[in-house]
């Protein structure tokens, strides 16, 4: 892959120029770090991992599927704004890749597709683990980006990862010089992110240690909301109070951690126990998704652990299960 060089002092200028043609979305620090639209390139904050994932820009928290009036249905058309995402970590990028599998590959979701189509993905390589909860090194992440920025003290090495990235680099050629070298696999390694020892959890379903997490879980759903890959949702209809013939059908984020998630008519709840719900999330992330699509869904960003009000560290729990396997008849 082609590698370019961008002087650090020129980054802000580069982004300011890019901003004329694109909407730039990058991590910004307010109360917490989150991806927001930036107005000035100086706003970008790359010290820490963003608290919120970037998924809401593609798979929106709330989406109008269609509007209706009486029995006629209209679908809102989306303005195809060109967006450039800057500062995406390796985990964020892989999370986008995994959601692409679900929404584009599997069922062709037109809303997700429209949001995704005009988006350019510019990554920022972590030289060190940006959060103590990271464990992306334990999972099989791949290179997935248009451009990837490797921070090298006074300059960036920019790896081109796609045709789109290539055209972008050509468009803003004046900022880049040829680096005359390639990015080595060693440079792509992130130190200190190999916490998860136990990637295959198929034998642990009945393990007693799930209680360690389930007993302190509040079923609040913070983990699934902050997860960059979790993709479940609900569909509801909303009507105008003044005119009930008019309204819209909406899709909203949901969470498998809520008891309501599996409640059917007649009040039967299939995953009534907290432990079952907690386990279901981890199994979906590490096993079920892989059974269906061939890759693990979890990307090891650790946001579900950082954002958990009781700091349930499922990575530690899984490691303990592995290490105590023989005693527990696992």
């Amino acid at each position, binding site marked *: 892959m082609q590698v370019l060089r961008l002087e650090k002092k020129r980054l802000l200028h580069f982004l300011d120029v890019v901003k004329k043609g694109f909407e730039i979305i990058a991590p910004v620090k307010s109360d917490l770090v989150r991806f927001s639209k930036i107005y000035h390139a100086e706003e970008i904050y790359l010290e820490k991992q963003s608290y919120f994932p970037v998924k809401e820009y593609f798979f929106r928290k709330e989406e109008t*599927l*269609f509007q*209706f009036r009486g*029995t006629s*249905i*209209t*679908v*809102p*058309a989306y*303005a195809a704004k060109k967006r450039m995402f800057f500062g995406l970590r390796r985990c964020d990028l892989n999370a986008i890749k995994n959601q692409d599998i*679900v*929404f584009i590959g*599997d*069922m*062709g*979701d*037109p809303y997700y597709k429209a949001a995704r189509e005009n988006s350019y993905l510019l990554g920022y390589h972590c030289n060190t683990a940006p959060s103590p909860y990271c464990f992306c090194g334990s999972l099989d992440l791949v290179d997935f980006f248009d451009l990837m920025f490797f921070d090298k003290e006074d300059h960036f090495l920019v790896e081109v990862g796609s045709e789109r990235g290539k055209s972008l680099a050509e468009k803003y050629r004046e900022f880049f010089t040829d680096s005359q070298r390639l990015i080595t696999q060693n440079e792509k390694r992130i130190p200190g992110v190999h916490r998860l020892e136990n990637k295959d959890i198929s034998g642990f379903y009945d393990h007693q240690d799930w209680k360690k997490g389930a007993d302190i879980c509040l079923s609040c759903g913070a983990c699934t909301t902050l997860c960059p890959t979790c*993709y*479940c*949702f*609900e*569909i*509801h*209809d909303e*009507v105008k109070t003044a005119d*009930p*013939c008019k*309204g819209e*059908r909406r*899709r909203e984020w*949901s969470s*498998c951690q809520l008891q309501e*998630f*599996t*409640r*059917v*008519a*007649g009040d*039967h709840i*299939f*995953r009534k126990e907290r432990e*079952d719900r907690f386990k*279901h999330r981890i*199994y*979906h992330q590490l*096993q*079920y998704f892989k*059974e*269906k699509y061939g890759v693990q869904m979890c990307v090891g960003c650790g946001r579900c652990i950082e954002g958990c009000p009781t700091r349930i560290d499922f990575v530690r729990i899984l490691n303990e299960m592995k290490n105590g396997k023989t005693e527990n008849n696992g």
Partner: protein
Amino acid sequence: MAKQKTTVENPYLPKPYKILEFYRETSDSFTVKADMEIDHDPGQFVQVGLLGIGECPISICSDSREYIQLNIREVGNVTIALSKLEQGDTVFIRGPYGKGYPMRYLKGNSLLIIGGGCGVAPLKGIIDYAENHRRDYKDLTLLLGYRSPDDILFQRELLEWKNRYNLQVTVDQNTHGKFCYGAKEGFVTDALESMDISNNNQIAFVCGPPVMMKFVIRSLKDKGFNDDQIFLSTERLMYCALGVCCHCMIKGKFTCVDGPVFRYDEIKDLENE
């Protein structure tokens, strides 16, 4: 906001259909016939709903390319709203979804159909299918259980079924002393146990409340049925029916895509989920 006309490729969009017939089956359930012309397998389902109210998954209980019949029990928002419909009204449907009963691969067998309560609805699809392909299947044995004589579904069809097939109807409690359609008091499982039936060239189809399915499977196993001779139809909460929203997951399987019909050996490890 700029609007565009509805396009066919959007999988979330339902289409309007006319109700050809509305028939009240029992005090809390009804059957609607809609003019939806689709090719489907018995056991597949559609998302049926009303704009402004919502959608719910209902299995198709007929076998025709000219219309679909849906038997619906009034238990939630959407189903109660649907119960207010009349002939000629519009209903919004998308589908069919899911994997139905693989009838084509079961030719030459006898069919043992065991249903409980509103679980009889998807099984009626098999009965109608077998009727339309009568030469492909041997005997049909229907074993249908309800709570009380008032809850017996498909009374219009029952007499015909009684004449053509080996039909047994059971009621858990016989509240007012009269037995119609030769119904017996007791559970389906009791009737099944006293039945002289072997697994020889016999396929069992079971649908009903989870407890009933559990005991029926146990008693089928006692009679020598193999796991791959038993088909179950499962029920879960679902929104998208496209294998995305995750509500209907039974461990790693999606009821809406991998099911709702499962062969017992596919899901027997998932029993408690």
